[in-house]
C-alpha cells in the first residue's frame, strides 16, 4: 500500500541487515490480514519475538550445559517448553486466529512459570513474578477477552502454587540462601526485561496505527486537493462545514468565504429551492440526490462582471446509520462544473426551436400563399365555368363581357401575387438587380398617389401629398421606387379606418431623399414591430387574420430599399397610427456596394397581423 511506502524507507534503511528475516516473518503473516496494515503489524509483532526468542533460548542451551554440567530433568523440560512459542507462532501463521494464538501463548507461559515455580519454592519462587507478565503480554492482543483469560490463568496458577505450599506438596528447595537471592534477582530482572519488551512492542504498535491513520488522512487530503470536483460537507440546514480546495478556482472565492452560508449565497436565487430540497432530502431520507443549479463565479481580477456557472451536485448522507438515529445527518456532496454541457444543451435547444420556428413559419407561409392564390383562382375558375355553360346560365352578351373582364382582373391580381413571391425569392437569394436611372421623384410619387386615390376615396380616407415642386432629380431604380411607394400606400390605406388620413411627403436633404408615409390607422403593437416586414409572417392565427394580403409588401419594400443602400424606419403606436420613413441616397450608384444582401430575416416569430400589400389593386 502507498501509505506503508510513505514511511517505510527510514525503517528499511536501518534494518537492511535483517531484511531476509523481515521478509521471512512477513511471509508468515496469514493471508487474511495481508490487506490490513494494522492487523498485519500485530501479527508480525506476535510472531517475530516468539520465533527469535525461542531460537535464541535454544541456542543458549549448549552454553548453559557447559556451565551447569549435566542438566536436571526440570532444566530439560524448561528448555523444551521454550519451543512452545515457535508452535504458537506457526499456529497463528497457519490459522490467522490472533486471539486464539494469544490464549495459547498465555497458557504456555503460565504453564512454564508454574512448572518452574513448583520446583523452586512455590509462590515464593523467583519465577512466580513471571505470572504478572502473563496478563501484560495478553494486553498486546487488544482483546479484553484474552486479557481476562490470561489474568484468570495467572491467578489460577498463583492459587495452585499457594495451595501446593499449603498442603506441603512442594519439593524441597535445593538452593542455598545465596543462590535463592541470585535467583530472585534473576527472576525480577528477566521479568522486567520481558515486560519492557512488551511495552516497546505496544508502543511500536501504537505508532504504527498512528502512521497508518495519518497516511490515510493524508491520502484523502491529497485526493481532495487534486480533484477538479469539489467535495463538501453540509451540516443541518445546508451550512457548509468543509469544502475542498477545488472550490476556489471553481467559484473564484476563498474557502473561508464559502463556509457556513457563504456557499448558499452564491447559488442562483431561482435555483435555491432545488438546492435546499436536494440537501434536505439527502439528510432526512437518507437517499442520494442529484441536482443541477447555477452558482455565481467571481472574476479573478474583481473587475469584470460576475458570471454564473452551471454545476451538478450529487449529495448523500455522510453516515447513514447516524442519520437514521438522529433523523437528520450531515450530507457529503460532490460538485462538478457542467457549464460546458449545459451550454451545449442550450445551443442544441436553441437550434431546435430555431428550426422549429423556421419550419412553422414556412408552413404558415405556404398556407398563406395557398390562400392568396386560391382567392383569385376562385373567381377565374368560377366565372369561366359559368361562361362555358352560358346558355344554361342564360347569360346575355353584356354579362359575358363582364365576366371576361372579371376573369382578366383576377388573372392580373394572381400575376401580381406570383410576381411578389418571385421578387421576394430573388431578393432572398441576391439575384434581384436594380437598374438606376436619373428621374424626377416628385412625378413618380404623384403618379403613385393618383393610382391609389380612388381606393383611398372608396375607403373614406383623405390622401394628402406634400412634395416640393422643385425637387431635384435622383438616381435610382424608378420601377423599384414606384413599387415601394405603392406598397406603403396600400398598407396605409388598408390599415386606416374610415375617416382617417394618409400623408405622403418627400424631401431631399444632405444627399438623401427622405420619403415618409404616415397614417392615423390601427398601428402596430411594440411586440409586433420587430417582426414587421418579415417575408414569412405569421398571423395570430390563420383564421383570425383581419386583413388579407401576402405579407410580402413590406418585406419587398425593405429588400428594394436595401438594394439602393437606403434605410427603412418604422414608428408606430397601437391605435394611433404608423409612420414609415424611407431614406435613399440621392444617387444610389455612389457608395453602393456591388451587391447588397437585402435586409431580410428568414426566421420570424408570430405576428398579430400583417402589414401587407401586394403592389396591385386589391379587389375588396
Amino acid at each position, binding site marked *: 500500500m502507498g501509505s506503508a511506502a510513505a514511511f517505510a524507507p527510514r525503517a528499511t534503511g536501518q534494518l537492511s541487515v535483517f531484511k531476509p528475516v523481515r521478509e521471512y516473518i512477513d511471509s508468515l503473516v496469514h493471508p487474511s490480514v495481508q490487506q490490513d496494515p494494522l492487523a498485519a503489524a500485530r501479527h508480525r509483532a506476535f510472531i517475530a519475538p516468539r520465533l527469535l526468542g525461542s531460537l535464541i533460548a535454544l541456542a543458549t542451551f549448549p552454553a548453559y550445559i557447559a556451565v551447569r554440567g549435566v542438566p536436571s530433568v526440570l532444566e530439560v523440560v524448561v528448555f523444551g517448553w521454550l519451543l512452545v512459542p515457535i508452535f504458537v507462532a506457526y499456529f497463528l501463521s497457519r490459522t490467522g486466529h490472533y486471539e486464539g494464538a494469544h490464549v495459547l501463548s498465555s497458557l504456555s507461559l503460565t504453564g512454564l512459570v508454574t512448572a518452574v515455580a513448583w520446583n523452586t519454592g512455590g509462590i515464593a519462587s523467583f519465577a512466580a513474578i513471571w505470572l504478572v507478565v502473563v496478563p501484560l503480554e495478553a494486553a498486546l492482543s487488544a482483546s479484553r477477552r484474552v486479557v481476562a483469560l490470561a489474568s484468570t490463568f495467572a491467578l489460577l496458577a498463583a492459587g495452585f502454587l499457594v495451595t501446593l505450599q499449603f498442603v506441603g506438596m512442594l519439593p524441597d528447595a535445593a538452593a542455598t540462601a545465596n543462590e535463592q537471592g541470585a535467583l530472585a534477582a534473576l527472576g525480577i530482572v528477566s521479568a522486567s526485561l520481558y515486560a519492557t519488551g512488551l511495552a516497546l512492542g505496544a508502543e511500536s504498535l501504537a505508532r504504527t496505527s498512528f502512521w497508518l491513520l495519518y497516511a490515510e488522512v493524508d491520502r484523502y487530503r491529497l485526493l481532495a486537493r487534486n480533484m477538479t470536483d469539489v467535495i463538501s460537507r453540509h451540516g443541518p440546514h445546508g451550512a457548509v462545514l468543509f469544502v475542498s480546495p477545488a472550490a476556489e478556482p471553481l467559484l473564484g472565492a476563498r474557502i473561508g468565504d464559502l463556509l457556513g452560508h457563504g456557499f448558499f449565497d452564491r447559488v442562483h436565487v431561482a435555483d435555491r429551492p432545488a438546492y435546499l430540497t436536494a440537501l434536505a432530502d439527502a439528510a432526512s431520507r437518507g437517499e442520494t440526490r442529484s441536482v443541477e443549479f447555477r452558482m455565481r463565479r467571481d472574476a479573478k481580477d474583481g473587475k469584470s462582471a460576475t458570471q454564473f456557472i452551471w454545476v451538478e451536485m450529487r449529495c448523500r448522507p455522510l453516515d447513514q446509520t447516524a442519520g437514521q438515529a438522529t433523523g437528520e445527518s450531515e450530507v457529503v456532496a460532490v460538485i462538478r462544473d457542467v457549464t460546458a454541457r449545459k451550454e451545449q444543451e442550450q445551443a442544441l435547444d436553441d437550434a431546435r426551436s430555431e428550426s422549429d420556428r423556421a419550419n412553422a413559419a414556412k408552413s404558415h407561409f405556404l398556407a398563406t400563399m395557398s390562400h392568396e392564390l386560391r382567392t383569385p383562382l376562385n373567381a377565374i375558375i368560377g366565372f369561366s365555368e359559368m361562361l362555358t355553360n352560358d346558355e344554361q346560365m342564360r347569360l346575355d352578351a353584356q354579362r359575358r363581357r363582364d365576366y371576361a373582364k372579371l376573369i382578366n382582373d383576377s388573372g392580373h391580381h394572381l400575376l401580381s401575387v406570383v410576381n411578389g413571391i418571385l421578387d421576394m425569392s430573388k431578393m432572398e437569394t441576391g439575384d434581384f438587380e436594380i437598374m438606376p436611372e436619373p428621374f424626377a421623384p416628385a412625378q413618380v410619387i404623384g403618379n403613385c398617389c393618383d393610382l391609389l386615390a380612388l381606393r383611398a376615396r372608396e375607403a373614406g380616407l383623405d390622401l394628402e401629398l406634400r412634395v416640393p415642386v422643385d425637387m431635384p432629380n435622383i438616381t435610382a431604380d424608378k420601377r423599384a421606387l414606384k413599387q415601394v411607394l405603392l406598397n406603403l400606400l396600400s398598407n396605409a390605406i388598408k390599415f386606416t379606418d374610415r375617416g382617417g388620413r394618409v400623408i405622403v411627403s418627400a424631401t431631399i436633404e444632405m444627399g438623401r431623399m427622405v420619403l415618409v408615409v404616415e397614417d392615423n390607422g390601427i398601428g402596430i403593437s411594440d411586440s409586433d414591430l420587430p417582426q414587421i416586414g418579415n417575408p414569412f409572417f405569421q398571423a395570430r392565427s*390563420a*383564421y383570425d387574420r383581419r386583413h388579407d394580403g401576402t405579407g410580402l409588401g413590406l418585406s419587398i419594400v425593405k429588400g428594394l430599399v436595401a438594394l439602393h443602400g437606403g434605410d427603412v424606419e418604422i414608428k408606430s403606436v397601437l391605435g394611433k397610427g404608423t409612420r414609415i420613413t424611407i431614406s435613399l441616397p440621392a444617387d444610389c450608384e455612389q457608395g453602393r456596394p456591388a451587391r447588397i444582401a437585402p435586409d431580410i430575416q428568414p426566421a420570424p416569430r408570430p405576428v398579430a397581423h400583417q402589414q401587407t400589400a401586394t403592389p396591385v389593386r386589391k379587389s375588396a
Partner: protein
Amino acid sequence: MPKTVLIVEDNELNMKLFHDLLEAHGYQTVGTRNGIEAMDLARRHRPDLILMDIQLPEVSGLEVTKWLKDDSELKSIPVIAVTAFAMKGDEERIREGGCEAYLSKPISVGKFIETVRHFLGNA
C-alpha cells in the same frame, strides 16, 4: 317563395360570383363582407342557408359561425364554409367550428350548386 342565401364574403369578385351563381339557379341572396353585419342580416332576413368565408376583416368567419350556433334562434340555419384555407387539417378545424359543410376555393360550380341544393332543395 324563393329560398334566401346569406353570403358572407369579403372579396368583391367572389361575392359577385356566388351571387350570380345562386341567382341563376333561382335563389335569392343577401350579402355582406363583414362578420358583424352578417349577424344583423341573419336576424333580419332569417336566411335558409349561410355561405361563410373564413378570413374576414374585423372578425373571422369561424367566430361568426360560433355566434350563430350559440344563438338559439339562428343556430338551425346551416352554414357552408367557402374558404381558400385548403391546407391539410383546415376542413376538420372548420367543421369542428360548427360549419355544416366545407367547400374549398377555387370552387367547382357543379359541386357548389349540388351542396347548396343538398341543404335547400330545388329553388
